[in-house]
């Protein structure tokens, strides 16, 4: 691009291009139109409406109070809302714990199933089973397994003397978060492994052959070849998992219902809108969740870009 230096060809190009380019631009926009309309309909419009509603006192059952604009009141209420603050903190803790574990375990599993051994195809399929079970079903299954009276976990633990007595993993606030994290890690690690495996498979094999010839150890190969070349896959995986974890609803809902000490942002939002019928307050919470998730994305992208340079 920079090599086109003389003014004459530029002028010629400018004159010649408009017709062709205009036609192509028009065609381009025409082809984009359905996609843009779809994005506008499913993303821009709902988001815009949510932001608009967050400045009103709208109620689900209209008629209780007429809807009017309330300025920033929903947001200032939110700043003093201890339940919301607690929900944000619980969600962030859950996200950090699960994403960290899922990433490390997922990477190990991906490396294992990427190496060639007998029965690799079977292994790759079998590891997906937890991920293939619908979350609500898996959560209910674990809820029963962790039950303090009939749960198989306590039964096994006390029989083998790993546990001194039956423990109410879910009801006891001190182990509630840990148990829900464990279930999420069990369920989502296969998905992380799958994404990372896809990244591992595009790394050219000859790089490793060259490294072998140069006498690099397996560990050196991992740090110098695998990890740097896996960076794009890692970024996608982490963003995917973090966003997913930040908007978690199902496992918590099955495990804890409306309990406050283990409420996530999404559950608090749902209970405000659907349970209490406060659409305005709920919209403000939704916008706040949007901003928090946005913040995480910015952090990831910046960190990764800095790493690249």
């Amino acid at each position: 691009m920079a090599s086109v230096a003389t003014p004459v060809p530029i002028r010629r190009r400018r004159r010649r291009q408009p017709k062709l380019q205009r036609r192509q631009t028009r065609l381009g926009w025409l082809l984009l139109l359905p996609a843009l309309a779809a994005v506008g309909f499913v993303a821009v419009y709902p988001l815009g409406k949510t932001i608009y509603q967050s400045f009103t006192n709208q109620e689900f059952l209209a008629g209780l109070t007429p809807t009017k604009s309330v300025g920033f009141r929903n947001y200032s209420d939110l700043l003093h809302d201890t339940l919301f603050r607690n929900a944000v903190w619980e969600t962030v803790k859950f996200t950090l714990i699960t994403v960290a574990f899922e990433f490390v375990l997922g990477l190990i599993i991906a490396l294992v199933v990427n190496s060639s051994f007998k029965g690799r195809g079977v292994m790759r399929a079998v590891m997906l089973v937890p991920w293939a079970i619908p979350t609500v079903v898996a959560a209910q299954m674990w809820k029963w397994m962790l039950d303090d009276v009939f749960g198989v976990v306590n039964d096994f633990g006390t029989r083998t003397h790993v546990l001194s007595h039956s423990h109410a993993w879910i009801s006891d606030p001190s182990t509630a978060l840990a148990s829900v994290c464990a279930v999420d890690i069990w369920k989502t690690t296969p998905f992380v492994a799958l994404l990372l495996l896809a990244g591992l498979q595009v790394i050219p094999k000859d790089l490793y052959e060259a490294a072998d010839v140069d006498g690099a150890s397996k560990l050196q190969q991992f740090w110098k070849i695998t990890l740097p070349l896996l960076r794009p896959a890692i970024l996608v995986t982490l963003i995917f998992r973090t966003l997913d974890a930040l908007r978690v609803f199902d496992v918590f809902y099955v495990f804890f219902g409306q309990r406050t000490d283990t409420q996530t942002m999404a559950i608090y939002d749902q209970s405000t809108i659907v349970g209490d019928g406060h659409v305005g307050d709920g919209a403000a919470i939704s916008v706040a969740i949007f901003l928090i998730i946005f913040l995480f994305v910015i952090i990831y992208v910046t960190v990764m870009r800095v790493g690249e340079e």
Partner: protein
Amino acid sequence: MKHRALVVLTALAAALALVVSLSVASAGTRHGTAAQSRAATTAPPVPNAKAIKAKYGGQTITFVGDSVGGGHTRDLALATRFTKDTGITVNVTPHPAASDASYSQLVRAFSAKSSSIDVAMIDVVWPGAFAPYLVNLKPKLGAQAKIHSKGIIQNDTVGGKLVAMPWFGDFGMLYYRTDLLKKYGYTSPPKTWSQLFAQAKKIQDGEQKSNSNFYGFVFQGNAYEGLTCDSLEWIASSGGGDFIDNGKVTINNKKAAAILDQMREQIGKITPRGVTSYQETETHTAFIDGNAAFMRNWPYAYSLGEAADSKIKGKFSVAPLPHGSGGHSVATVGGWQLAVSKFSKHQGAAIEFVRYMTSKAVEKFDTITNSNVPTIPSLAKDPAVKKAAPYLKAATANVPRATRPAKFLKGHYNEGSKDIYQGINQILNGSPASSVLPGIQSKLQRLIGK
């Protein structure tokens, strides 16, 4: 080749996952099938069926009905009979078992002006909030309303309009194991909460030697509407008021804090630690499997205890709930109504269905097969009803009622109740009452001040 093998294996994994899902789903319905066999007692015929058929035959209505105990089986039996007699097809959809979730479902339907629900099951505390969305039943069902209890009709009348018809009543009771009380030397069920704790402890200590799953007392401790009902009984029976009294929020008082702290100390001692996540189903499952000495529950559980697959058939009875020192026993008023949505496209057919469902014959059928409390007082004298529902005897049925504060919270009832049950659940899970009650107090004050 390799790819095809992978696809096949992935499909196998998915199939395995599906099997797991289905087996989990079916594990939860064990007691549902037991109820099925019991409801075999035939549903009563629809009176005046020919005229109804001529007018509305061929129409289809949707009924959002019961899901607790044998409720759904009963609904299906009655709907099938109604369809057979009148030619009106009734789609029966069970509502969420937690009544606050069921409230939310109706809020969504009404706010969307949805015609997808024709007949809905309405909790005794909802008529005020839903009145604008319900059909006035007075013109067509006014005469039938006269045979129902006056107090409930009053509750279901909002601004002169009869927005719902009483279907069955509910009140909290103490279920106890007669055989175990005798075995451990007790001649009567506990009168006070401290007596309950002591008896439960002694029986549990003895029974756990042979059954490690055995606990003294089970109740509804999950953070949901049921805990509002249970905790109202604890507090009101200890002289701590009804959450809101005479328009003033009273929940933050010493007597309430004392009984709540006592309850908290019993969690994990005479109850399973997990009782703070129990709803009705978990509670009655523990009791009818013979794993609890005492249970707080509604009358519906009586028929489950007497069912063929119950392990405690003939070994239990009911009594009024205990009370605190200086208080007297109370029972929280529950109960369900049937209402017709204003947005229904088949209101005529829907009203005929409600007429049938709230008739004397159907209420008798429901009481006998499902041990629900009839809302028609004259039924209590019926010998067949007396036999099937011994809890209708004066000792349990005439206990003073405690009412949830719906008339003060009005349209904010669901939110206020949530503040209550979330707070109480927090106490049961380990927080001292004195640190939680002031917060509930101020939230309720804001709601009734609005």
